[in-house]
């Protein structure tokens, strides 16, 4: 079992409840998408699974280990087997793309190798091959501040693919790309994950992409899992209920716009 949550809740330091009563089992090699409105808790859930946040209640097990029962050293070893793709990849602006990609392996390399790689990249072919999967092979020696948002997101994906973790967590991995590129990048990610037997959990704003690329969909709303179904059995009514927003002022346009606005990738 890659991920196992039972009754997990998360309350932020300011008392705001982000997640409550989450039960989720994800088998090894499974691929699933998390959808839901903004502020539903998708990012909190992924950060919880990356052991970037500590649950305030419930049982959490990642790759059959509870990260919060481990010592700091073992927890770092467990973290090296989990890769988190950030929505806005936190890369230093001055860093070169090749360094940013090779940084994925820092958890597995010895310190000496990591520092040596800073002087001269130790695995340029590996970094280039990973970037080539995402059509970025020509950007190998560019600086990160010269890339667009969509390119930066693909560098972030390349770093995690280069890390080759057993569990990939992706937080809106294609939000800054145009719809065609977003679809292509998601299929590359899915292909790599299933070819190498990695477990993949991705949160997505574009419902169409989630339904098209993932065999299992989880709907999250107000910190709870609303449904956990294969895409074929999700009804339009369920989706509408998931995204219903009573706080928004109704637009003068027809209610059909709600459906189309979901397809626009967020920047």
């Amino acid at each position, binding site marked *: 079992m890659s991920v196992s949550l039972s009754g997990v809740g998360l309350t932020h*330091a300011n008392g705001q409840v982000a997640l409550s009563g989450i039960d989720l089992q994800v088998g090894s090699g499974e691929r699933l998408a998390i959808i839901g409105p903004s502020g539903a808790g998708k990012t909190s859930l992924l950060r919880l699974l*990356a*052991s*970037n*946040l*500590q649950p305030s209640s419930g049982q959490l097990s990642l790759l059959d280990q509870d990260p919060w029962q481990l010592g*700091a050293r073992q927890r*770092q*070893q*467990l*973290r*090296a*087997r*989990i*890769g*988190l793709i*950030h929505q806005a*990849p*936190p*890369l*230093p*602006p*001055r*860093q070169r793309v090749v*360094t940013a990609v090779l*940084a*994925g392996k*820092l*958890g*597995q*390399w010895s*310190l000496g190798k*990591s*520092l040596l790689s*800073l002087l001269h990249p130790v695995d340029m072919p590996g970094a280039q091959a990973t970037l080539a999967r995402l059509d970025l092979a020509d950007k190998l020696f560019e600086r990160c501040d010269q890339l667009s948002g969509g390119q930066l997101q693909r560098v972030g994906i390349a770093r995690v693919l280069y*890390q080759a973790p057993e569990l990939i967590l992706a937080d809106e991995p294609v939000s800054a790309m145009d719809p065609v590129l977003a679809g292509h990048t998601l299929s590359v990610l899915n292909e790599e994950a299933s070819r190498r037997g990695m477990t993949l959990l991705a949160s997505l704003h574009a419902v169409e992409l989630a339904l098209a690329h993932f065999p299992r969909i989880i709907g999250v709303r107000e910190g709870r899992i609303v449904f956990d179904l294969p895409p074929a059995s999700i009804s339009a009514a369920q989706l509408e209920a998931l995204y219903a927003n009573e706080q928004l002022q109704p637009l003068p346009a027809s209610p059909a716009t709600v459906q189309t606005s979901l397809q626009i990738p967020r920047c």
Partner: protein
Amino acid sequence: MLKPALHDPAVLPRLALTLLALLLLWPGLTLSELNLAVLFDEQNASNMGRFLADFWPLAHDREFLQLLGQATLETLAIATAGMALALLIAIPGALLASRALSLSAVHRGGRPAWWAQALRWPVRGLLIVLRSVPEIVWALLFVRAVGLGPTAGVLAIAITYSGMLGKVYAEIFESVDPRPSRALLVAGSPRLAAFAYGVLPGAAAEMLSYTVYRWECAIRASVVMGFVGAGGLGQQIDLSMRMFAGGEVASMLLTFLALVLLADQISRLLRTRLL
């Protein structure tokens, strides 16, 4: 009139801080006995004038220039060796004192656990002790311990400057964007690697500029320490002043200007070329 909901909540603290600053300024002026009128006193002005008039013409005979060159090299050597020793203490000290590489901060929203903070305090304390005693006092101490000469200057600079560099480095590490290093720590990276890949790219330019500036300060400090016998240009200035050789003092001050200019240019070159 604005609605009460639109009041800036920062207004009161800012007002209080401004008032506090004004209140603190007045006792500061009285306690330091600042009185600009003495500058315009007839007697004092003519005294200063005579002192300055001695500065011209500059001393430039062959023997003096040779002495000057040697003293300049000695000053540069004291400053550079002192900085190198200081870096040996400052870099590990900064890494230990900084919160930027805290593992416990990763899952606590950037705030390290209390016991981790408590462990940083002894290191911070050591850096404070190192820099709180002025280098001139250390120099006086070491002149007694190792005798007159540059060694005392090198040791004094190494001790004081390691405290300053360590403190400022630690603060630079904390001021750069913490997200890259945290992302690396969450991906299982060891802390030193996360520092090299996540913090250093953002901190390098500022560290470099501060280090070169401190080197410049070390040159100046080595001159002041020369007055107490720690070698270099300072010792020569002291001798020349005692002999009322104003021209020699002026030549040495000009050399000084050239050294500071040099440090400035090195800093600019390194910042544009290397980064």
